[in-house]
């Protein structure tokens, strides 16, 4: 019976260690809850170039160390560990990271609804500075006279993405904006799609490959949402979007939570100052304020991120009735409620 149980455990382990399907960035990196903008700007953004500029070590290295010794007939002892171990290249699709990222960005831009695909032409140049999942492990085992011991640890993996994006006017080649977008994602056992299952008798995570793919995938999804807002802002600065002449019917104020990932958001009716909605939600846009600071969200009612000039005009109009303005933050206006 014991043998059968052991066999089942090994079969289970072998099954769990089957390599997962390669990560298809164009498919797996697409954000599930991408905000769809209803009134697109009349322009088309083409992904002109994606350069994979990841450092060599990030692609190839697995920092492994080991110490072992043997006392014949008496003792064998081994310590080993690895980390940072970057995600194996075989876990990416064969089309390559640059190609996959290019396809992903184009898909995100097409489906975001922010740009119509017709009108003024822009070229997007992307440089992948970092894109990795990384893990750490530690093992200790000893076989001695009359006994044996094993200790194996997997530390939660994390994913990190950094893209440097440059938007250019296709006709003139003029640079309209440059921005570096970064996102990290630490393994979270509560996140659907990630697993915290442990191998029997150890604290070694099963589904190691799936998990490391997962953290990369979620980091990429987050950065894609930032990308749309960033490009939205760059395009708006190039004359898209209507001039702001009247105060908006409603506007939103937010404050970030300490970890920058979430925000408390209130929608305020301009005419009355009534709070129409108040909710805590995930914050998926470029960071423009410090945690806890109430600001007027630089996003229009149509879902477009406002150009700096549009935003300043909006704030100026709001200031007739509300305590809003720019103090020491040049990107976002503070909000302190209705004027007395």
């Amino acid at each position: 019976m014991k043998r059968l149980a052991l066999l089942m455990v090994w079969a289970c382990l072998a099954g769990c260690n089957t390599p997962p399907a390669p990560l298809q960035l164009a498919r797996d990196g697409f954000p599930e809850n991408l905000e769809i903008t209803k009134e697109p700007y009349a322009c088309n953004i083409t992904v002109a170039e994606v350069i994979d500029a990841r450092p060599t070590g990030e692609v190839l290295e697995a920092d492994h160390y080991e110490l072992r010794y043997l006392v014949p007939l008496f003792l064998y002892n081994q310590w080993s560990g690895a980390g940072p171990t970057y995600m194996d290249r075989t876990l990416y699709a064969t089309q390559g990271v640059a190609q996959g990222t290019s396809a992903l960005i184009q898909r995100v831009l097409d489906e975001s609804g922010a740009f119509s695909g017709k009108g003024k032409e822009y070229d997007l140049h992307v440089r992948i500075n970092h894109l990795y999942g990384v893990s750490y492990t530690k093992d200790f085992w000893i076989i001695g006279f009359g006994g044996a011991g094993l200790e194996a640890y997997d530390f939660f993996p994390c994913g990190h993405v950094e893209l440097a994006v440059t938007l250019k006017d296709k006709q003139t080649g003029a640079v309209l904006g440059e921005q570096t977008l970064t996102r990290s994602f630490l393994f979270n056992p509560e996140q659907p799609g990630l697993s915290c299952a442990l191998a029997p008798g150890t604290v070694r995570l099963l589904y190691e490959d799936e998990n490391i793919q997962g953290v990369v995938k979620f980091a990429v999804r987050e950065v894609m949402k930032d990308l749309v807002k960033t490009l939205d802002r760059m395009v708006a600065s190039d004359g898209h979007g209507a001039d702001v002449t009247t105060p908006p019917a409603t506007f939103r104020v937010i404050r970030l939570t300490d970890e920058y990932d979430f925000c408390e958001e209130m929608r305020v009716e301009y005419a009355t100052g009534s709070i129409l909605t108040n909710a805590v939600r995930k914050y998926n846009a470029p960071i423009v304020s410090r945690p806890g600071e109430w600001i007027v969200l630089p996003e229009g009612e149509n879902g477009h991120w406002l150009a700096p000039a549009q935003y300043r005009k909006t704030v100026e109009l709001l200031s007739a009735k509300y305590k809003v303005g720019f103090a020491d933050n040049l990107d976002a206006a503070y909000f302190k409620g209705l004027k007395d």
Partner: protein
Amino acid sequence: MRPVAGLLYVLCLCGCSTPYLLPHHRPETRDVEGAGTSAVTNRSASGISGITKGDALILVFAGESVTQPFGGCLDYERKKIVAPASSYSMSRPGLALYEKTVDALRSRGYSVDRLYLPQTGQAAKKQLFLNVEEMEVYRIHKKKGDRIVSKAIVLCRTGREGEWSRQRVRVDISAENDVFAALAEALLSQILL
């Protein structure tokens, strides 16, 4: 019997101390400083020029550009990567350092405006750019309380392009207080001439 006992003793000693001998079990000794790959055209060990006491400054957040995983510490006790301090931002440690640098500059008498998105920059004031290139924060367990060690490599420049200066800072504090405030103070003591 004595030689065997002696050998056993030595083996036990080696076994117990190995976690402190291996580099990855002593994260505070890991070399993060050679990891940066960004081009630095004008390195300076002593600081950056162009900023004088009491200036009105714009501190520009030029980005987080890390070459190794950052943001957490390897906590062998809890078997996972965890935030090393209660004040710590796991997902945006570069931004956390940026905010504390703003505060530290103000406490030194500078008037500081924040700028998160560089293309909206204003040229009227002196600009100081901060790019957090590398950061590691570790908690080291001790019997009486934890010790937190943090290392960062920060690229700074004043307004002119191509004048980056790479600063390496390290702080070592014993309580779970603000590791970023300590890092920011250490950074400013290096970059302000």
